[in-house]
């Protein structure tokens, strides 16, 4: 394995300072151009199924209950109860106190292959002590989470304490060990600039993230195409430097099949087709799944489906 930095804050700062800048207008235009790609017929059908497999089916509300979690777990295993050819989603994503219920519920529905992802580290704000963040993560792992979606300390990042951000990720990565893969949420809507998104992406990757994730879903804008573009460029460049492929999770604001396919086009043309895989790209979403299902029905039947023909959970 190639080590890009020696772990000291000085070496981290040096590495980040050498990253090229991102020109916002240019990045926006590249993303806009790629969103004009017209995906038809066979490639559209392939993309819909791939998008379903990439969905981290998510419920992250204060009002979440065991019932709500059981419902999405059932849907995660068989998104369309009338059509078992529809693949299962990539994961189910819940708060850590509901991990146990999610794990049991998935197993009960024949979804033992589907991982449970837990948001931890005082999600979504991340405003807690490291001790609490570690405990939060340990709880989730204890209850059966095999994916941890942590948030970075945006306050520390924005005040230039890159070392703090870096060390915290390392600490959580240590907790995860080989029991869970770590997704690091940058909350790009609070970082505001693409230069910051690029820097934060590299901090996360250098600290050992398995995935870098755009957003909590609680802040807007979230997974806009140019933000995902910048993050895909980061994982591509990291691969060129280290030979390691880091995943990207786009979360927040992806509601339609069209949005999802635009994301897949970005993946295909920015990071490369190797990333067209649920192990390397995920979409954090809830409403998206139904739209994917309706589009899938349209592709199969030739006519447009309606909201009463997909399940509402």
């Amino acid at each position, binding site marked *: 394995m190639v080590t890009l930095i020696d772990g000291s804050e000085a070496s981290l700062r040096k590495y980040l300072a050498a990253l090229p800048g991102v020109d916002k*207008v240019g990045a926006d235009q590249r993303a806009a151009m790629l969103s004009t790609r017209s995906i038809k017929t066979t490639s559209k059908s392939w993309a819909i199924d791939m998008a379903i497999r990439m969905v981290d089916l998510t419920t992250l509300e204060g009002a979440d209950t065991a019932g709500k979690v059981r419902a999405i777990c059932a849907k995660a295993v068989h998104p369309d109860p009338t059509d078992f050819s529809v693949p299962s989603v990539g994961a189910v994503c819940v708060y850590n106190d509901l991990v146990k219920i999610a794990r049991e519920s998935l197993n009960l529905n024949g979804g033992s292959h589907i991982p449970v992802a837990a948001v931890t580290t005082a999600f979504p704000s991340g405003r807690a002590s490291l001790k609490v963040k570690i405990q939060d993560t340990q709880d989730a792992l204890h209850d059966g989470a095999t994916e941890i979606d942590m948030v970075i300390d945006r306050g520390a990042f924005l005040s230039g304490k890159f070392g703090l951000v870096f060390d915290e990720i390392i600490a959580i990565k240590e907790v995860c060990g080989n029991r869970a893969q770590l997704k690091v949420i940058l909350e790009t809507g609070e970082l505001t600039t693409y230069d910051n998104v690029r820097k934060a992406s590299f901090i996360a990757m250098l600290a050992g993230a398995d995935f870098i994730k755009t957003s909590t879903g609680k802040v807007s804008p979230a997974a806009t195409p140019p933000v995902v573009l910048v993050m895909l460029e980061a994982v591509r460049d990291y691969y060129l430097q280290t030979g390691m492929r880091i995943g990207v999770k786009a979360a927040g604001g992806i509601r339609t099949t069209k949005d999802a396919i635009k994301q897949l086009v970005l993946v295909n043309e920015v990071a490369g087709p190797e990333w067209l895989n649920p192990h390397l790209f995920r979409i954090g979403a809830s409403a998206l799944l139904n739209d994917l299902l309706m589009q899938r029905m349209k592709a199969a039947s030739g006519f447009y489906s309606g909201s009463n023909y997909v399940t509402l959970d």
Partner: protein
Amino acid sequence: MSRIDIKKTYKLFIGGQFPRSESGRSYEIKGANGKFIANPALASRKDLRDSVTSAKSALSGWSSATAFNRGQILYRIAEIMEGRRDQFVTEIIALEGGSAKVANTQVEQAIDLWVWYAGWCDKISTIAGATNPIAGPYYNFTTPEELGVVGIIADQKDSLLGLVAAIAPVVATGNTAVVIASEKRPLPAITLSEALATSDLPAGVLNILTGKVSELAPWLASHMEIDGLDISGVDPKIESELRIAGAENLKRIHRFNKSQSPQRMLAFMEAKTVWHPIGV
């Protein structure tokens, strides 16, 4: 016994120096009364070539001088001409004939023209530039810049005013020039170069040749290092010949009829438009 006058030798002005023609040639100038006045240098195409070389090498310095600085220097030229008024008047009367009053007026107008263009140096870009409201996230502005090296065939009649009307606007905007003086009335041009030489104008910005227009102009028009041509002093009969020669490097070729106009500056400027994204 009255004192014997010291007569002046009229030479070329190239790269801030006053050489004779490399060809060794000179030609006779007669006054309005038909009497011999002087034997100025009869410039050759090699003198012209040397002039172009010095104009080209002076270009980057002069064009990158601040507009304020150029304005100061142009004004300085007016100051020095003012101190030599009598000399210009005497030469104009001798060459063109006419009254002292008429000659005086020409000299005054010529001096005032330098002052007028001195004031233009730091204003022409404001007047002729633009910020362009384009449909997109870009800052976009257009600014006029110097064209480069300009060849000037000055007015043949008004030996001083016609010359200043051609050279002042060209150098005001940062160009450098090679000038062919009035063929039959070249003396004020040489006296002007003496003023230029003591005016802080960098060497080579203006190079002034005396000689035959019909011999020199075609070389000027065909020289590939020259970017623009003021043919105001050219006989219309050879104009198309010069334009055809100038087409080889697409020289900007102009003839003017006004001595005092911003167009005389703009004709030898190029509009440059710069785009830059606006984004954080």
